[in-house]
C-alpha cells in the first residue's frame, strides 16, 4: 500500500485524538491549502502572470488558514492585513535582487534530470522564483502573525486599560520570543532539502568559489534568507496593526456607547 496514504491516515488519527474537533479542522485545512496551492500552479501553467496568481493565492490561503483554525474575529483581520503587507514588502525587496541574481530555473547539475523535456515553455521563470520564495514563507508568517495577534488580544481583554504603546510593546516581546524557534524550524526544514545538494557538492569536490556562485546554492540560500526576512518583518507589522485595530474598535465602541447615552 502507498506510504503517503498510510501516513495521511496516521496524521488524521493523531490530530483527532490529540486535537479533537480543532485537530480535524486543522487536518482538512491542510488538505484544502494543498488543493489551493495546486490550483495556483495550474493557473500559472496556463500562462497567467505568476506574480498576480501568487499574490491572490497567498491571500486566499491566509484567509482559509486563519478562518478555519481561529474562527472569524478581529485577530484574524489584523493578521490578514499584516500577512498581505509582508508579502508585498518581501516581493518588493526580492524582486529586483532575485531577477539580477538570475537564480531562476534549473542549474547545469539539475538539468540532466529534466533533459527529456522542452526547456522553452513560454513562462518567465525569473517570476517563478519570486513565487517560490513567497509560497515558502507564507505558512511561517501566518503562524507568527496569528500567535502575536491572539496573545495581544488576550492581553487586551485581561487589561482593557492598557495604553496602545504598551500593547504594541508586548506584541513585539511576544514576537521576539517566537523569532528564535521559528527561524530554527525553517532552517532545519530547508537544510533537510538542501543536504542532497551539499553531499553532491562535496562528492564532486567543488571549490568554495564555485559553490557560492552556483545557481542551485544561491537559489537555496536566497530562499532561506528571504524566509527569515519575512518572519522578522511580520513581528513589528502585526504588533503595529493589531494594536491600531484594537484601539480603533475601542474608540468606535466608546462613541457608540456615548451616543446611546444621549
Amino acid at each position, binding site marked *: 500500500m502507498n506510504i503517503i496514504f498510510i501516513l495521511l491516515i496516521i496524521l488524521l488519527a493523531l490530530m483527532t485524538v490529540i486535537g479533537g474537533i480543532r485537530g480535524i*479542522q486543522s487536518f482538512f485545512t491542510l488538505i484544502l491549502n494543498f488543493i489551493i496551492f495546486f490550483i495556483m500552479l495550474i493557473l500559472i501553467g496556463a500562462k497567467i502572470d505568476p506574480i498576480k496568481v501568487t499574490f491572490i493565492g497567498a491571500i486566499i490561503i491566509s484567509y482559509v488558514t486563519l478562518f478555519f483554525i481561529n474562527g472569524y474575529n478581529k485577530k484574524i483581520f489584523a493578521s490578514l492585513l499584516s500577512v498581505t503587507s509582508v508579502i508585498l514588502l518581501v516581493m518588493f525587496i526580492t524582486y529586483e535582487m532575485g531577477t539580477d541574481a538570475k537564480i531562476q530555473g534549473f542549474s547545469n547539475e539539475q538539468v540532466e534530470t*529534466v533533459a527529456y523535456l522542452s526547456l522553452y515553455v*513560454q513562462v*518567465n521563470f525569473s517570476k517563478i522564483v519570486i513565487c517560490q520564495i513567497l509560497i515558502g514563507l507564507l505558512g511561517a508568517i501566518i503562524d507568527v502573525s496569528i500567535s502575536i495577534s491572539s496573545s495581544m488580544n488576550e492581553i487586551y481583554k485581561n487589561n482593557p486599560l492598557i495604553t496602545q504603546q504598551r500593547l504594541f510593546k508586548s506584541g513585539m516581546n511576544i514576537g521576539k520570543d517566537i523569532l*528564535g524557534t521559528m527561524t530554527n524550524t525553517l532552517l532545519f526544514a530547508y537544510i533537510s532539502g538542501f543536504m542532497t545538494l551539499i553531499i553532491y557538492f562535496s562528492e564532486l569536490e567543488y571549490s568554495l*568559489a564555485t559553490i557560492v556562485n552556483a545557481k542551485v546554492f544561491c537559489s537555496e540560500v536566497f530562499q532561506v534568507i528571504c524566509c527569515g526576512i519575512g518572519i522578522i518583518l511580520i513581528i513589528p507589522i502585526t504588533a503595529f496593526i493589531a494594536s491600531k485595530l484594537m484601539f480603533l474598535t475601542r474608540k468606535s465602541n466608546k462613541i457608540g456607547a456615548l451616543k446611546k447615552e444621549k
Partner: protein
Amino acid sequence: MFENLIIKDISKFKNIKTYKISKKTLVILIGVIIMSLLSLYFISTNEDLYNKPIAKITSLSEEQSQKESINGKMESIKNQKIQAIIMNGIYKGKTIEFNNITSLSQINDLDLKVKDEVFLLVESDADQKITSIKILDLKRDKYIVYIANIFVILILLIGGTKGFRSLASVVVNIIVLFTIIQLFSKGFDLMRLSIIASMIFIVLSILIVSGRNKKTLSAIIGTLAGTLISMLIAGVVIKLNNWSGIHFEDMEFLTHPPEEIFFIELIIGTLGGIMDIAISISSAIKELYDENPHIERKVLIKSVREIGQDIMGTMANTLLFAYLSGSIPTIILLLRNGLPITYIINFNLSLEFMRALTGSIGIVLSIPITICISIVILKNHKIGER
C-alpha cells in the same frame, strides 16, 4: 492624517528605544555596521581572488527571433552581442566580444544586462591571442552578501538581544552541518553521524534560544523523545511497505543510495518543528505553574492541550508550504510540457509529501510527550525543594 499618525507612533517608538541603548548594544551596532560595510567592499572588488577569468559587461545589443520548441509552440529568443572587459588574470583590462543566447523562459540560460559579471572559459593560442570564449556562469556572490546583510541588520534592529540569539543559533547550526558533511566525505558512516548531529542540533539550538533553565531541560527531552517516536513511526511504515509510492528521481544524481540520505533528511527536517512545539508547550506549562503552584494536574493538562491545539494546525501548515515551495519550478515545467497532473503529483511530490507528513506527525505527537515530561520534571523539582 493617517500617515501623520504613523510617523508620530514610529517617532515615539524610536524615543523609547534611544533611551535604552546601553554601551554593549552600541558596540554591537557599530561592529555590525563596520562588518557589513567591509563585506560590501570586499564583494565588489574580489575578482582577483578567482582563478577563472571574469568579464564585466560594458555594452550589449540584442536581436529578437522566434524558435519552435519540441512541443510545437513558438518561444521568443534573444541573441545578445556582448562587449565586455576582463577584470582579472593574465588578460586583465582586455576588451572582448562574444555572443549569448537567451530565451523568454530563462530556464537554463542567462539574460545578461550591462554591469553583470560572468565567469568565462577562455582559450588562447601560443601568442596569448584569445581564440574562443564560452560563458560558464554568472558571478552571484555579491547578491548573497546583499541579502544576508539585509537579513542580519533587520534581525538585530527588530529582534534586539533575542534576534542576536536566533542569529547565533542559526550560525552554530550551519557550522555543525558543514562539519558533519566534511566528516562524511572523509568516510564516516552517515547514519551515525547524523544521529549525533541531530542531538547536537537539538541541545544547542534550545539552549541558545531559551537559556539554561528547567523549561529548556523539558523542551530538550521532549524534542528528543518526539523525534525518536516519529522517526520510529516513519521507519516502520517505510519498512512494511518497502518504499512503495515514493519516487527518488529527483535525487538520482547522487552516488549514494538515496533511501538512506532521504531518511536522514527526514530526521533533520522533523527536528525543527518538534523543537518549536516543545519550547512553546514547556514554557506555557512553566508560566501556568508559576502563576498558580497549586494548580491541579487535570486543569493544567486541559489548558496546555488547548494551547497545543492552537499551534498545531498553523505549524503543520508552515512545514507544508516550506516543503512544497521547492518543487514549484519542476511542476510548472512539467505542466507546460503537457504531462498529466496525476503523474506530476505521484512522481514529483512524493518526497515533499513524505517530509511534510512526517514533520506534521512529529509536531502533533510532541504535544502530549512534552506535556508529560514537563509535568514530571516540574513535580520532581518541587518535591526536591521542600
